């Protein structure tokens, strides 16, 4: 069963097409890695899924619910982290999560659970503006993970984290479907990251979906097309390069 489905989703800004006729199929209980070079349309797609920006055309359903009719109902089921950590710097980490908790109607214990998941328990009483970049990133993630939502949309969640932090968050994201049966859509420009945590991947270039499927399917396709299939990075670069040449970008 597809948890997230987009149907010819398109976003146009003036004469620039950020996302073009995108058809994504994200299955329930899987980690979907969203890959693409800078400006490919990954963040725009995620913003559309969260209702932060209206699609120019096309539609999408999330857990069988339609946007914009079921917007509030959709947002109840999504934990998100978009672009950069979003928080109130004048409040402590705990107070930031308390605001989210109250809006979502979660129990008090959910704050500690979320803080524990991202390793922020010792710093929960500290003002968020005094957090380091990595701690802010963790707070942003805690805001997405609080209450274990059935769907997670994470845009470059490991940005600004040190190697240990990246490993922790990667392990956490990978474990989420098993632990909480949640579906994760995660974007990253770190290709090995996606390779290590995603079950399925989608490759986007200039707003067009070049590939969607499992990692094995990608390798097979790479071999068939004569690209290097040794690692995801080589395959990705070869696919993007071929697409750019073919379309004259």
């Amino acid at each position, binding site marked *: 069963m597809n948890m997230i489905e987009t149907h010819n989703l398109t976003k146009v800004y003036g004469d620039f097409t950020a996302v073009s006729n995108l058809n994504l199929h994200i299955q329930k209980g899987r980690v979907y890695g969203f890959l693409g070079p800078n400006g490919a349309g990954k963040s725009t797609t995620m913003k559309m899924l969260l209702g932060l920006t209206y699609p120019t055309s096309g539609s999408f359903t999330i857990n069988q619910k339609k946007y914009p009719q079921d917007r509030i109902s959709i947002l109840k089921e999504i934990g998100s982290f978009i672009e950069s950590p979003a928080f*109130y710097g*004048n409040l402590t980490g705990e107070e930031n999560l308390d605001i989210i908790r109250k*809006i979502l109607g979660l129990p008090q214990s959910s704050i500690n659970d979320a803080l524990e998941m991202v390793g922020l328990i010792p710093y929960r009483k500290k003002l968020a503006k005094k957090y380091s970049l990595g701690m*802010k990133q963790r707070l942003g993630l805690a805001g997405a993970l609080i209450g274990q939502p059935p769907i997670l949309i994470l845009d470059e969640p490991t940005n600004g984290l040190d190697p240990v932090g990246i490993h922790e968050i990667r392990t956490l994201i990978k474990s989420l479907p098993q632990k909480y049966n949640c579906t994760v859509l995660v974007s990253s420009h770190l290709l090995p990251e996606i390779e290590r945590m995603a079950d399925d991947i989608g490759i986007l270039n200039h707003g067009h979906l070049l590939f969607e499927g499992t990692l094995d399917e990608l390798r097979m396709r790479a071999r068939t097309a004569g690209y290097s299939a040794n690692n995801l990075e080589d395959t990705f670069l070869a696919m993007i390069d071929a697409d750019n040449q073919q379309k004259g970008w």
Partner: protein
Amino acid sequence: MLFLLEAKKIKHTGYLAAFLLSGIISCIFPIIHMLVRAETFTSLPGNPYVILINANWKMMTMFNILIVICGACIMYHTEYANSGMLKMVTLPVNSIHLFFSKFLITALLLAGIIFSQITVLVGCALHWFPNASFDFISILKNTGFQWLIFLPTAMLMLFLSSVCKNMWISLGIGIIMVFTVSIFPQDNFVVSLFPFCSPYQTLAVVDENSHTQFFCMSCIIQTVLFYLAEVLYLKTRRSFT
């Protein structure tokens, strides 16, 4: 619930402290004025309260307008500084309810300040004018009127702050508006209806010209219109972002 959440968000921002400080200064102003120029005012004929409000209200209102401008800017700066607003938009909550909660906080604090200011004016009248007498109802009536005619300014300022991500732009617009209205003739009825200008009017003067009902209706309509402008802004901004 959203009102309480919005109240929580202004923790550690200096918002409450600024309102409190401005309220205290504006309340002290008529006392100092009377201590220095008591004879000038006590020798004037007429209602002591009207004499005092005519002598002090412009300065007291100036404080109120400045704090409403700063307050709106602080509230939205808190939202935009670390993208707290972005998080709110991705949560199952209607953005217009958040805006209205902010307006409610401003309006309540403003009511408290105006009530204190009117009470201080009444207290000054009772202390310095031997024949002055006031009842609580009259204090409430004056507070209610002065509060009501302040609402369009508060709503407009919150709307401007919500639209401008850069706090200095909304602060600048607010300050420019304050000084622009001082250029216009203050006794012009039409001009006195506009935000940033209406708060300077007093119930005594408006009552004298039998404009009270019209004035109140105009302020209510303007408040609703600025609220609708925010609704429209929230509905359309997703098309351009």
